[in-house]
């Protein structure tokens, strides 16, 4: 059982981390741009989840999946080096986290 606020806090921490990584000048410009766009996509998903929480009775099993995806993405991004395989794998985790969040957002 996870709470909506836990998902939002996790997502907010992930986007902050992505913005920080995107500001790392040792990464190629293309990678910086990619990480920045990931950060903005997570911000967008976080905002959407705040405005349209489909479930959310304070402690809802539906939030367990996005929370787990966010934790996984955070771990992958934290360990990010400028090796392209690590970047690709971290970006994939972020996309999955974003999609898991979108799944609990009513459109």
């Amino acid at each position, binding site marked *: 059982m996870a709470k909506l606020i836990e998902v939002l806090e996790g997502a907010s921490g992930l986007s902050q981390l992505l913005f920080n990584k995107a500001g790392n000048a040792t990464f190629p410009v*293309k990678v910086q741009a990619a990480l920045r766009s990931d950060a903005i996509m997570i911000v967008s998903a976080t905002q959407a989840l705040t405005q349209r929480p489909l479930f*959310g009775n304070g402690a809802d099993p539906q939030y367990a999946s996005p929370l787990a995806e966010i934790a996984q993405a955070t771990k992958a991004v934290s360990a990010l080096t400028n090796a392209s395989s690590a970047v690709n794998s971290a970006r994939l985790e972020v996309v999955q986290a974003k999609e898991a969040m979108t799944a609990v957002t009513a459109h």
Partner: protein
Amino acid sequence: MDFHRRATVLICAIALSSCGAQKILVEDTRSFVAAGRTATASATQFFVEARYRQLEANILLIAAEPSCEWGTTILLRKNFPTGREGLCLPAGSKSADNGTYSLEPIPLGAIKPSLALIGALSAYLGALSKVSNSYEPQIGPAIDNVIEKLSLFKKAEALFTRTEPQKAAIVGLLEYFNELRVYDGQAKQIRDYVNKNGNKFEDGRAALVEILQNWNVGIVDTSAQLAKDSLIQGVNRSLRRTTDFNRRRKLLEPITEIIIEQQSAKEGFSNVIELLNELQTVHNHLRDFANKKYTAEDKIRIERENSAQIWEIISRLGAVAKAF
């Protein structure tokens, strides 16, 4: 003095003393209500300013991104195959490969009634803290004030999203106060009702906490991150064009400013949430009070402590505005 005359004097004395006590109790209740309103007005100024900062954050995002234009929402590009693409897609783009971001801050029409409700709940608990030692406690003015603020809050609900349990908790809170209003002036009935139905108060308060927490993390924090990032992007672009120390320092100044301002907006929300949690502590004390037997001295001491705690909460609510 004959018997009838003495009896008349005695009845008059009791009546006068009772009237005087009632007047003091009503004044106590009204003082809490007035203080709650003043604190709310002051706190509202803070959130008007916080909302302005949030809007400014979004303006910075648009200013820093030449591909973006102002609107209610912007369409964000998801993939950047060459790394040179702009962040925003043109309005009306059909691509599934995008995301939306709202540029609208939390509506003031939602924030104002939320703060007014917190002020009114504080004032109600202040009035309730006086019930223990009152023969005919007059908590009506405080309850009427909460009912008025709850009605305004419910009217504003169309402006923001709530979950079904949050909606139900606010309806439950309104029922609680409408039912409690009937017992005005009856100390035992008030204590019994609060003790038995206090969970409705707690659920309503918890729903309000959740709503504020969600705004703080999901909207205020995300705009702060975007603003900081967009500003850094813009500043870095300008820094590359000059080597002059003073000019470069001037360019960097807004970064500190925006970090401090956004942090302050976030802390404002956190402080108000903390006060709501403290209201719960006072409410728990007041519910416990009805279950236990205290000496008259203890009653007076506990009443003073609860009352002082409420004054402090109201005063801190008013002081939130000083953060800017």
